[in-house]
């Protein structure tokens, strides 16, 4: 019990004094997840808008695939990416396994279906509201998509925030494809898993505080977005 209290105090101290190792790991985590989030959003938003406004032939199939991918456990995604990137795999020559790039790839695969399906719901609702007006105004398909994406921008940001929460807290896939290598691919969640296993609670708890703070920040921003929506600001 005393160990735990000492660990808690020391973990808190590491956050307060910006312990170099803690900062390094936090920054790497943010870099990996934010990069994955950017790529995933760039794919998921337009895809969601397209699914909302256009009745193309493979639409149902695409939605089914997205839903199936969303149900895929992250460790399985990690396993698949591992096989694809491993030396004997089809993309082995790229030498990406156990690099941050591999972690970004795995997270993109996890995040695209999540962000696309959350975004799709909002965009589909908005489209049913706007449909008659935009058809009567003769808008081009591209204008439909840009109008919907702009007017649903808060919902899209909320979808991205949900993606960020999922990505930053994800451990299974990035552990497998990143390998949790010190000073290379160690991130918040994999470091916590390792330090806890070793019984070193100080760093684990310090990193835990950072994760909790990030989750809180995401919630605050989401809440604030809802506020601006109701008040009609930007």
């Amino acid at each position, binding site marked *: 019990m005393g160990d735990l209290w000492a660990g808690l105090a020391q973990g808190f101290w590491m956050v307060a004094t910006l312990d170099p190792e803690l900062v390094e790991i936090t920054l790497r985590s943010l870099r990996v997840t934010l990069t994955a989030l950017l790529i995933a959003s760039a794919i998921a938003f337009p895809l969601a808008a397209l699914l909302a406004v256009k009745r193309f032939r493979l639409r149902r199939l695409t939605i089914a695939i997205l839903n199936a991918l969303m149900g895929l456990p992250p460790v399985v995604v990690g396993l698949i990416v591992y096989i694809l990137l491993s030396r004997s795999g089809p993309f082995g020559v790229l030498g990406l396994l156990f690099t941050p790039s591999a972690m970004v790839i795995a997270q993109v695969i996890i995040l695209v279906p999540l962000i696309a399906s959350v975004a799709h719901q909002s965009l589909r609702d908005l489209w049913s509201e*706007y449909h*008659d007006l935009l058809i*009567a*105004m003769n808008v081009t398909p591209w204008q439909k998509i840009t*109008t919907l994406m702009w007017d649903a921008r808060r919902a899209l940001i909320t979808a991205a925030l949900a993606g960020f929460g999922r990505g930053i807290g994800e451990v299974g896939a990035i552990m497998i494809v990143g390998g949790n290598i010190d000073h290379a691919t160690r991130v918040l969640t994999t470091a916590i898993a390792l330090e806890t296993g070793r019984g070193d609670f100080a760093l684990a708890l310090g990193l835990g505080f950072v994760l909790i703070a990030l989750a809180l920040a995401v919630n605050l921003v989401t809440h604030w977005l809802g506020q601006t929506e109701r008040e009609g600001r930007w």
Partner: protein
Amino acid sequence: MVSALFPLTVEGAKASRRGRVLVGPVDLTLDAKGITVVMGPNGSGKTTLLKLLHGTARLSAGRIAWACPPEDARPQLAFVFQRPVMLRRTVVQNIAYPLRLRGVSRASARAQALDWAARVGLDAMKGRPAWSLSGGEQQKLALARAFIADPRVVFLDEPTAALDGAATREIEAILAAARDEGRRLILATHDMGQARRLADDVVFLHQGRVAERAAAPNFFEAPATDAARAFLKGDIVE
């Protein structure tokens, strides 16, 4: 480029859904001037006919032809719905939207939208989110948004059906002003008073067909069909 739109020729036009004929066959010619009021009881096909003429409802048979090619006609037409659709934007941004679609710069679109907001009496609420307006204000917004792109023809589907007397009077004043500016209005209504106040000519629909077509005074003074007579008397017409 403004090509001649009129006359609009409608020949044997029909709209069917799942084998049921909703409207038609309709034969009609519309000339360049004034307000045509499409009258008829609920379900007689006013909305469907307006959408056919505007080109947003599918024609199952027959022909609807402007005096110019359809791709030249479409940009000159606007449509105002019975229940206005508000974009999730401010009042000015809603009014400016059609100009933004046409590539008008943000500043110029905004200036023109402010102008139109003032013309329809919405300048006091220009920065408010559109959804927060009352029904009458939303419909005035919809009119400003329809007129801002300078359409030659505006279709209006019972624009005052859900509004009270004061809001209806304001909207009718805006419509009369638009007519006096030379815009062609095609207005569906089942409000007899409104038809009398605004119509230059009347198309009376009954069960999806044009039962009567006449200059307004003739129609109101001497309706030719039993259905129109009953409708004008205020009887229930099915």
